[in-house]
């Protein structure tokens, strides 16, 4: 049995703007690429925020890389954050820094001993791979949504995390950029073991190669399996979300 990267153990959490709750009881194996799809307010973003330790569940527990977020938060231990890269719907690039400095920030903060040229080279390499090199000196206000999102994804991978959580990673990206992003994430997964959980509003080429597809509706898992099997078993009303 493969190692577990993320487990939602009988998790229940209230969905914002709704009377229903998200119910999750699943485990995600290390190294898997898992896609969460479903209509708006189905609980995808909430699942990402729970996995990122931003919210505590109402009941149950969320374990990431064998650690319980709530216990870590109580102990004030922030080291787990370095092993989990997260990009939310609002990616939160720092508005007073250029794109390059945003991508560089995690290394500057957490890898103080690393020589400056090495850090800068690493940041530049990420920007180049995501087609953002020419925009390095622009501030977030001068970038479009897709560029901001790609910049945030590059930033989240700077510390080489074991887990990458993406909420709506393809929002604002054109078809070519979706493929660029897919190739980028695939390349990172080949370089190092990386568990990816991506929440999307609908099926996208970005998740074509996903190991697992989970379809959510009203906070409940409606289908869970390989991309092909979910396409066959998902309820007809949700079929368009599963490709």
């Amino acid at each position, binding site marked *: 049995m493969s190692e577990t990267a993320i487990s939602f153990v009988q998790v229940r959490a209230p969905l914002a703007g709704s009377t229903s709750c998200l119910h999750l009881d699943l485990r995600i194996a290390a190294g898997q690429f898992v896609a969460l799809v479903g209509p708006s307010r189905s609980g995808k973003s909430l699942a990402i925020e729970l996995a990122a330790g931003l919210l505590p569940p109402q009941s149950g527990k969320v374990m990431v890389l064998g650690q319980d977020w709530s216990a870590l938060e109580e102990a004030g231990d922030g080291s787990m*954050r*370095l092993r989990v890269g997260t990009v939310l719907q609002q990616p939160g690039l*720092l508005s007073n820094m250029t794109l390059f400095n945003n991508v560089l920030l995690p290394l500057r*903060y957490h890898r103080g001993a690393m020589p400056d040229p090495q850090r800068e080279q690493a940041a530049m390499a990420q920007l180049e791979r995501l087609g953002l090199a020419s925009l390095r000196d622009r501030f977030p206000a001068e970038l479009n949504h897709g560029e901001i999102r790609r910049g945030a994804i590059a930033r989240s991978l700077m510390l080489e995390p074991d887990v990458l959580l993406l909420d709506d990673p393809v929002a604002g990206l054109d078809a070519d950029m979706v493929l660029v992003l897919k190739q980028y994430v695939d390349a990172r997964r080949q370089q190092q073991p990386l568990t990816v959980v991506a929440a999307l509003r609908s099926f996208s080429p970005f998740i074509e190669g996903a190991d697992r597809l989970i379809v959510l509706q009203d906070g409940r898992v409606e289908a869970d399996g390989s991309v092909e099997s979910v396409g066959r078993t998902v309820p007809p009303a949700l079929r368009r979300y599963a490709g």
Partner: protein
Amino acid sequence: MIEWVGRKTVAGYAYLAALATLFIQAVLDLISPARQGRRETLRVLIRQILFTGVDALPVTSVIALLLGIIIVTQAGTQLPKLGAGGLVGSIIVVTVIRELGPLITAFIVVGRSGTAIATELGNMSVTREVVALRLMGIPISQFVIMPRMVGMVLSMLCLTFYFDVVAVFGGYLVADAQLTIPFSAFVDSVTRALSTTDLLMTAIKGLGFGSAVAAVCCYHGLAVRSSYTEVPQQTTRAVINSFVLCLLVDVVVTVPLYL
């Protein structure tokens, strides 16, 4: 009515406790032996000192100079009528160095930097930059709050003394031009009226006002939740509460010492 007063009192204490927690956390972060992110934090601190301290020098100079001129003009024309013309130096010390210097400096800092901090942090909260920092394992208290607080406290302290010096100089300009008091006599009059306690009080007020303004403005900036419309509301509260808290600190420091 009693219930309303009770509720407001409890809320007031809770507010002061929240400010104290924010301040204590910043102090702990400052003295923490953790080396993580020291260079980055120092970068933010230097930027804050440049903005709050150095960039405020021109406006502080103008206001201090004008205040010194006004006070000595009033004192120089009124005191001789009472046969107390030699008290010009004392008036400068009592009004500017003890009271108006620290207070007006605090008001300048609130208007320039306090509002900037509250607005910046409010916008960072709305655009989820604060959450993004947390997700990167960068503690908000260490990277955002502590450098702003330390920067503001140091800047306030230095600006307060700078304000006093410029205001006294402004007073001398009037004394020299209109009242024909020689420079040496003016300086002598000021230094005779000035005690070590006055300088200590100025320093304590500078530190106290700086801490209060920084804590209030950071608190209100981070109190913004999800809408840009909250930013000006919280900024306004930060300004008003900063003024009130500065006056409160002033009373707490001044009354026991001079009463």
